[in-house]
């Protein structure tokens, strides 16, 4: 296939792009905080206590702990997916931010690496906010839960890759509806955030195990609940593969879109 398939070689310029995004985010800290703390609080208080009263425990965990760990992972997914679709698309297109960047020593590889790092960072921020809320309602077992933060960062990278591919091929914002309805929402519902994956039919389970969110949840849950990790290397490898391959494919596609 035509196009520039060279392996991306981002340099230090990626950090300048990351810093730019951080700087914009800091300006909008208040609405971001409402979003980051408000939403999980609603979920954990509303669903956690409401449903928790009926359910009691799930997979031998209190439902609050079960749900909190699931939401930490799913919010990493949501945050990174929104950032790498709507926000990236805005900077790449209407706002012409990439055009301005490409006229400097930055390369497209730098820019996209910076974006992906930023997605990871934002995922980490939102995971941290939920972790704090979960801690306050007593849903966190111990300091081991802090490891959920780097996991959220990695999950952010993993979800940034595929979402970035969507930005590469999107013709307008509405296009992202497909991605969210056909990929993101099903993951949210099927990947073990609200109930254990084991309750799904066998066929479904084997499909669900291919999805990145399942692996993000599988890592996060024992960390928050203070339990030993099961097959952590497998989960890390799947997330790493989504991040790496997704990034590579997105770079190739966006090169084809912008460098014409």
């Amino acid at each position, binding site marked *: 296939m035509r196009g520039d398939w060279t392996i991306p070689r981002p340099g230090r310029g990626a950090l300048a792009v990351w*810093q*730019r995004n951080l*700087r914009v985010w800091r300006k909008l800290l208040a609405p971001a905080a409402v979003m980051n703390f408000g939403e999980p609080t609603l979920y954990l208080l509303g669903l956690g206590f409401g449903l928790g009263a009926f359910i009691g425990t799930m997979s031998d965990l209190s439902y609050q702990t079960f749900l909190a760990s699931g939401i930490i992972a799913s919010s990493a997914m949501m945050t990174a997916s929104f950032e790498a679709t709507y926000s990236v698309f805005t900077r790449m297109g209407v*706002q*012409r931010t990439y*055009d301005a*960047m*490409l006229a*400097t020593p930055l390369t497209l590889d730098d820019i996209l690496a910076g974006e992906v790092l930023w997605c990871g960072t934002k995922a980490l921020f939102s995971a941290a906010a939920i972790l704090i809320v979960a801690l306050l309602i007593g849903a966190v077992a111990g300091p081991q839960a802090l490891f959920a933060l780097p996991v959220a960062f990695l999950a952010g990278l993993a979800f940034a890759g595929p979402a970035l591919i969507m930005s590469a091929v999107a013709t307008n914002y509405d296009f992202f509806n497909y991605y969210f309805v056909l990929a993101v929402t099903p993951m949210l519902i099927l990947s073990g955030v609200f109930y254990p994956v084991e309750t799904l039919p066998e066929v479904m389970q084997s499909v669900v195990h291919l999805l990145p969110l399942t692996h993000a949840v599988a890592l996060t849950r024992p960390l928050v609940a203070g339990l030993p990790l099961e097959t952590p290397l497998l989960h890390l490898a799947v997330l790493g593969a989504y991040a790496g391959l997704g990034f590579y494919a997105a770079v190739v596609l966006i090169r084809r879109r912008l460098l*014409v």
Partner: protein
Amino acid sequence: MSPVVSASRLHKRYRGFTAVDDVSFDIDGGRCFGFLGPNGAGKTTTLRMILGMTPMTDGRLSVFGLPMPAEGRAIRARIGVVPQADNLDPDFRVDENLEVHARYFGIPAAEARRRIPALLDFAALSERRGAKTDTLSGGMKRRLTIARALINQPELVMLDEPTTGLDPQARHVIWAKLAELKAKGTTLLLTTHYMEEAERLCDELVIMDRGRILDRGSPRELIGRHVEAEVIEIRGGDDGTFAAFAEARGCRLECQGNSLYCYSRDVAPLIEHLRQRPDVFYLHRPAGLEDVFLRLTGHELRD
């Protein structure tokens, strides 16, 4: 001294369409070099190829003696760019736009903050340093974009239609700023479809149309080479009597739109004739690049 930009046989093809067709030029340091051409001539495409933002289909390019695209990063580090469409960062204030842009060049924050006051001063935007960029007028945005292009203290500044869409006053302000830059020894590369802009600013220019360079030289050379010294333009045409009169005196006539252009080295008898024709509205002026363009292409510069 070797040229700042040396382009040899550049081609850019989009599928079947040729946007830049066998273009070669050298740009010497410390001068203002212009690309004059109508919409779609291939000016922006040429600029983007020089920056490595658009890969060339064919040809060879070196900037500061370095090969493009192999040394793209190093080359862009020494260039300032004012794009055709403003792309200031709407999420930031005026001064932040400069700071953030400096980071893209790897300029440390402290050094950027040291450079910014002088740049804001140059752009006459010190008062508005805390303003959001989307509250600026078109002229202010343009000046900020020029200031931004200078943050890396570039040796070459490329400006793509720097004054299109600005009112005459704002345009004059920009021209003065560009003259100031040139006086400091910065090489300027600009595209325009205003012949007045090209005549005022450019030491040397190429006339482009449909992806090709038609001729090159200083504005004076081009005018001397292609057109007679003076023009009489009849707006709204005439009934044929003037045309016949002028033709009989060896003038060259061009029809364009509903104007009739009459080129001559000696216009005195023609003026005499027109004085007795109060029904005809005419304009007498020295020939300019617009006339060169019309001569070379058979159509007007503005379309």
